[in-house]
């Protein structure tokens, strides 16, 4: 039996049936992502001042990914329009670009952004011990400017002993009174002590004990490397979901969004290769299928338009 109303409109709704189907699905998707976004709002409104992280995500990379997703939204609508105008080769070209954009988006997320977070370390200092770490936190400076106090020391975890963490500091903790770090937005990933740390490691490897000790001492002296005592730490972890409510909700929403991107890529791959055979039989039917898949893809883009400023910029 043939499925009715795949091309012609059903008289009562005035639409081909798949379109109603996709919109009902998108309605449920709005509630799914809405639930997650509202939990973000809830967590953020309830956060202690100074404890909601800022500037931990890479803004240029996030902006690039946003542009890529927007471009793919344009190409998918062009793919549909090409089918409507019966330009099959153009359809294939636009579809291929769309898939490529989706793959780049995911590759950047999974290959660069996520791993970068997993290699980043943060230690929240106990409120009673905060003063001991003033040279890394700069809270006197923050109070003078009327800003929320800092509690976290971040950077790259270079070593760990029974009683302390050895952290190669991020710019914000290496230079906490720099006005550029007052309103953390995007803190460049490079750590000011990186080169010196490498010299130290090389010296240590070569067995030059005295030189290594001198270099390490220098790093600590220059505020590039910090010894954080474990007894002063409230909690510490890599930038993974357990680090904070921020990263928990970031990984949940962007992870689910990433799964949607993956789903879209698979659907488009089907329509680019085996599914495209429908064109010979019924081009209008294929155009409708692409319209429906496109509606899903635009929704995925739409979620990202909200997610990008919320996590990266604000």
């Amino acid at each position, binding site marked *: 039996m043939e499925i009715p109303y795949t*091309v*012609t409109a059903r008289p009562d*709704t*005035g*639409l081909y049936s798949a*379109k*109603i189907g996709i*919109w*009902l699905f*998108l*309605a449920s998707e*709005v*509630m799914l992502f*809405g*639930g997650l*976004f*509202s*939990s973000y*709002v*809830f967590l953020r*409104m*309830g956060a202690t001042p100074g404890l909601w992280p800022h500037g931990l995500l890479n*803004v240029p990379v996030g*902006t690039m990914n*946003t*542009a890529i997703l*927007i*471009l793919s*939204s*344009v190409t998918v*609508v*062009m793919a549909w*329009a090409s089918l*409507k*105008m*019966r330009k099959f080769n153009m359809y294939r070209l636009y579809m291929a670009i769309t898939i490529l954009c989706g793959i780049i988006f995911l590759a950047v997320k999974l290959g660069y952004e996520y791993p970068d977070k997993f290699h980043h370390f943060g230690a929240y200092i106990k409120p009673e011990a905060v003063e001991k770490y003033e040279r890394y936190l700069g809270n006197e400076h923050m109070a003078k400017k009327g800003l929320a106090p800092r509690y976290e020391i971040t950077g790259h975890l270079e070593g760990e002993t029974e009683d302390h963490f050895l952290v190669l500091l991020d710019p914000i903790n290496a230079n906490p009174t720099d006005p550029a770090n007052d*309103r953390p*937005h995007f803190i460049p990933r490079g750590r000011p002590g990186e080169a010196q740390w490498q010299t130290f490691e090389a010296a240590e490897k070569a067995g030059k004990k005295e030189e290594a000790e001198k270099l390490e001492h220098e790093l600590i002296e220059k505020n590039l490397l910090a010894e954080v005592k474990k007894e002063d730490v409230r909690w510490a972890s890599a930038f993974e979901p357990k680090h904070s409510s921020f990263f928990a909700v970031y990984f949940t929403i962007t992870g689910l969004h990433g799964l949607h991107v993956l789903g879209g890529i698979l659907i488009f791959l089907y329509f680019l290769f085996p599914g495209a055979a429908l064109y010979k039989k019924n081009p*209008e039917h294929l155009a409708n299928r692409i319209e429906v898949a*496109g*509606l899903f893809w*635009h*929704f995925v*883009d*739409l979620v990202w*338009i*909200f997610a*990008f*400023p*919320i996590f990266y*910029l*604000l």
Partner: protein
Amino acid sequence: MSELTTHTAEVAEHAHDDAAHVAAHIKTYLAVGGILLVGTVITVLLSYVDFGSQGRNIIIAMIVATIKVGFVAAIFMHLNSEKSTIYRVIVMTIFFCIVLFALTGLAIFDPIHLK
């Protein structure tokens, strides 16, 4: 049989109309793509401006995002000219979504211990 033939002819004619209609919209699609890219740049730039409080920055960013989403929904998702069935689904969705977000107010308004 003849009925079916007429029907097929109608569909074909309809498709032809559609093609002309779609061709006229290509420029709009490209323009909206451009607007969205510019909107992204604006969002990023605005976040470097201090509007007085974090709350204000968030509201401004959300207004820009909503405008962008409006373009995607209206033009790319064809909501500027859709059938009423779809609008009804969307109105219900928006209503329940607003209720959902209103619940987050409980983070600051405590209805039990309010005096």
